[in-house]
């Protein structure tokens, strides 16, 4: 029986083990990179009802997902906090046991964001829809016609949202996120014209720039 020297073998095993160590370190690095920043939404019992049903039915999943990544979500400000309505609101309706309104106007936002909302109401931005019925909009409403005004001018400037007899919103006037939108509750404007819903944090491009980028009409 020769006494073999296993030195080479041992060096091999040692070297391979070190390569294994490097591979595992890379694994750890990959993992850490993946689990960096995360928002922790707080979902109250009522909001959970909204979210579960909407996600299950596949309606508004994008909105829910946007919200989950928002600052509102971390503070527990969810669906019902903004969308809840009172009996006296003309656009209020019953939905799965809650009394809600689709439109969240600057008046609703002002419940928490009083200062910003007040400043906005007093600004010229909130008057954006005013000119539409006036002579300034001859080219739009009269020359090109109401359809052009609805799908073009009003999309940025804002429409006057009408509530039909059956409680639903007039499809000629909604959806609309125009900056000067005249809401059913009387307040002017739409905060989400710049603070895109439902994450709200970042103010998006000013309307005029959007006008150029979008495939809107060239009035």
């Amino acid at each position, binding site marked *: *029986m020769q006494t073999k020297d*296993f030195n080479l*073998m041992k060096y091999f*095993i040692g070297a391979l083990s070190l390569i294994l160590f490097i591979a595992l370190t890379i*694994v750890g690095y990959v*993992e850490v990179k993946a*689990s960096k920043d995360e928002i922790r939404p707080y979902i109250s019992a009522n909001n959970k009802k909204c979210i579960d049903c909407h996600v299950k039915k596949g309606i508004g999943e994008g909105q829910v997902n946007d919200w989950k990544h928002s600052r509102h979500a971390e503070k527990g400000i969810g669906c019902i906090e903004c969308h809840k309505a009172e009996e006296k609101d003309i656009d209020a309706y019953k939905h799965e046991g809650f009394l809600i309104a689709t439109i969240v106007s600057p008046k609703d936002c002002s419940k928490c964001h009083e200062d910003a909302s007040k400043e906005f109401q007093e600004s010229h931005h909130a008057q954006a829809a005013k000119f539409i019925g006036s002579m300034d909009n001859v080219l739009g409403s009269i020359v090109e016609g109401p359809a052009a005004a609805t799908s073009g001018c009003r999309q940025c400037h804002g429409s006057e949202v009408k509530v039909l007899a059956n409680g639903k919103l007039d499809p000629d006037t909604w959806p609309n996120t125009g900056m000067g939108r005249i809401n059913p509750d009387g307040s002017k404007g739409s905060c989400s014209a710049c603070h895109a819903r439902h994450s709200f944090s970042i103010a998006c491009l000013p309307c005029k720039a959007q006008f150029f980028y979008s495939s809107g009409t060239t009035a």
Partner: protein
Amino acid sequence: METTIERIKEKSLKDRAIDFIQKEVPDHMYSFSYCMGATPLILFLVAAATGILMTFYYIPFSERAYESVRAITSEVYLGWFIRGLHKISINLMIFTLFLHLVRVFVTRAYKTQGELKWLIGTMLFFTILAMGFTGYSLVYDQVSYWGMTVVMNMAEEMPLFGPPLAYLLRGGAEVSELTLLRLYDLHTKLLPLLLILLIGSHIIAITVLGFEKVEGSEGKHLFYPEHAMKVGLIAVGLLILIVNLVMIFPPTIGQMANPLEVASNVAPPWYFSAVYKWITIAPRQPALFGILLFCVVFVSYPYIDRFLTERGFDMGRVNIVIGSAAVLIFAILTLWNVVI
């Protein structure tokens, strides 16, 4: 009585242990093709370790099962890594197991005195395939659910012991949450226990019965440190391989099981593809009968070999032919299933 005790006392436990690991191993074991028994074992240990780790997160109950697997894959820290290791080590293990089987078959290592090794080996083979099936079903995605259903129905069709077996496995007349629980128990408790016993017996059988003589190999070398070092080298090499494979092919998860709708892409894992294809192309009863027949021939092959050798057949040649044919058919059926 006295003499036995004296004989036991003759050598200390330490010396006995040293004697055991310093047993001799024939020189043909230098070749890797003869070391493919150790490879599945190493991979099994990795699979067992990662499997045990996952039991700390897995929930064996219908939708929660799918949720927990999804959580392991995308939320739990290093979950993808552990699950990926588990999947890849299992797939690699079954692959090298097939290689080992082919090698043993072609070299006729079951020849007289070695039948026990073969018998235990076949039991191991079936148990490992069962582990593969039960493990796959635990994910509770579409493939799991419909795979479960199909296999249960197949089991039910078996003659005699079929229906009661299917009933036991399913926990009733239909696939339900009890089924998942039973498969979970099988996969994590009963079958691993059986596997450990079988692996132990397989190794002991080899130690006691020795290796089949291979032509051209004359010398012997020590199990420890020589062979052991080699196995150690292979083990570390395998680990590097699978860790890298996990990073290249991280684990995924399919759609959640929907008892009301069969997805179009339901297909068993590759190691069952051949059998699956077979029962697809052949009419029902003959197909199942064929599988049973194959199993019987497979298990009792050493005796068939002995029988035919006595009748003058050159089993060395025969085995090479049968082995090659089997591999070819397996490959064709598997690829056919994958391509179409």
